[in-house]
């Protein structure tokens, strides 16, 4: 049974969608205005599509280096989280024992701990061992990211029959080979979910990197955003250009991986 096209809902939907995009519109149009123009005309299109703000913001942000820092931290952390969580969850799901259930519940329980509750000892301990650097940050992301990732992998692994493992072992494969050649490829859908959830989180994370790698030349994109929002001076025209630059990589990612992203976020929340 096919129902009628709902014109009323269609119009309401489109109006709301426009409303949802208004903040981005305002950011975008004001990124081309001069300091003075923002004060006299905030909502209208700019008189001149002037790229000067972008040139200045690009330099102030040291954009290429900052982008590279963000990419480096995010990609390395996510690769390691996927690798280690899949391995860990495999061990937990295939060896049913008291150890395994204790470890599994430990990972689950760790999800309850808010970052602020471990923040102060974490930073002081890592500081004492000279680990407040990029390597330390990536290691911390593995620790914080492991819980949800293990949980998702564990669920998926329980749906893969153990007879597969046994068959491969009889054929002479060792654990390592069984995992990488047979099991891991079968986990691809959940790997996409795990990767997407961790990419979104790490790419946008502000507080942890601000405590661990906040030094010239090492900043990620969120850390650099404070440049335009000083205590007393607000350079709105530069800020709008800087914020637009910061959002562009995310929009590109969204454009290409939209379906996987929405599916990943929804699966990650429901499972």
């Amino acid at each position, binding site marked *: 049974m096919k129902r009628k096209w709902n014109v009323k809902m269609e119009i309401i939907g489109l109006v709301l969608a426009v409303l949802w995009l208004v903040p981005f519109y305002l950011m975008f149009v004001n990124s081309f205005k001069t300091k003075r123009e923002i004060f006299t005309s905030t909502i209208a299109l700019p008189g001149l599509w002037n790229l000067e703000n972008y040139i200045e913001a690009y330099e102030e942000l040291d954009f290429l280096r900052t982008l590279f820092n963000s990419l480096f931290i995010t990609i390395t952390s996510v690769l390691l989280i996927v690798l280690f969580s899949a391995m860990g969850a495999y061990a937990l799901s295939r060896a049913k024992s008291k150890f395994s259930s204790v470890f599994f519940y430990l*990972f689950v329980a760790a999800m309850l*701990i808010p970052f602020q509750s471990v923040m*102060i000892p974490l930073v002081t301990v890592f500081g004492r061992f000279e680990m407040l650097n990029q390597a330390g940050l990536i290691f911390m992301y593995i*620790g914080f990211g492991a819980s949800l990732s293990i949980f998702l992998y564990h669920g998926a692994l329980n749906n893969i029959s153990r007879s597969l493992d046994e068959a491969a072992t009889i054929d002479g494969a060792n654990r390592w080979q069984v995992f990488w050649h047979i099991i891991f490829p079968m986990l691809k859908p959940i790997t996409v979910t795990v990767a997407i959830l961790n990419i979104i989180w790490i790419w*946008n994370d502000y507080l942890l990197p601000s405590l661990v790698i906040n030094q010239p030349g090492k900043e990620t994109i969120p850390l650099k*955003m404070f440049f335009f929002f000083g205590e007393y001076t607000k350079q709105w025209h530069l800020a709008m250009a800087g914020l637009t630059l910061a959002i562009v990589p995310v929009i590109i990612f*969204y454009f290409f991986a939209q379906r996987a992203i929405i599916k990943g*976020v929804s699966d990650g*929340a429901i499972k």
Partner: protein
Amino acid sequence: MRTKSYSYWLFLAPVLIALALVVVVPMLLGVYYSFTSWNGIVTGDFVGFENYINVFKDERFMDALWFTVKFSVVSVIMINVIGLSLALLVTSHVKSSKLLRTVFFMPNLIGGLILGFIWQFIFIKVFAAIGEIIGMESLQGWLSTTNTGFWGLTILMSWQMAGYIMVIYIAYLEGMPKELLEASAIDGATSVQRFRFVVFPLVAPAFTVSMFLTLSNTFKLYDQNLSLTGGGPYNSTEMVAMEIFQTAFTQNVFAYAQAKAVIFFVIVALVALIQVYINKRREVEM
């Protein structure tokens, strides 16, 4: 695989070590430090519950806690109402369904810090400009009072998270058997009745998931708080996460801040456990 085998531990070691050093050890150390006069370098004396007693007398902390509770309750309601409405809208035979989902979900991909900065511009500059055009005094000076700061934060969070919650409701709505809806329509149920007696009971599990996610996200909010209001004016829009950060890294009273952090953990964990308990009980009933 056996737990005694060499490969078991090899597979498990990396995540186990990371979890231990990043979460478990700092958590245990933190609980211990909260009973001392630790200053970041020297552990100091054991002071018993002194830090905890002081926390409950700390007006700034209690204000932040109260602000956080008010903000969370209002935001959770707004986000869920808007999120469910958007989900019903995009699943109601509209041609632009895909486009609408894409647009409503978009803010979730962008960091809270950046979104807070964008909205700071909107509340301060754009609201003032609109107020001037249409002659509305109340649009001037947003974020400069506690009240406008509060509503600014809830508007920002509703705009950001509604699309996220929408995606969750959609997953449940689309998993709903179509025959049920059609049967009820044939039997003459109005759309309100259909929602109340057919859709609502079937998406009930989605409420549990969404409530939990919105509550945990709003209660632990930090980035948006920092970039939108910075806690101002006079710390009156400061939420718990930010208050703990300030106590630790601006005032440098580590042990005291850690006691607040432990209390924060207890509250968050209690809320989550109550949530799981209700969830389980409902599953049994169904």
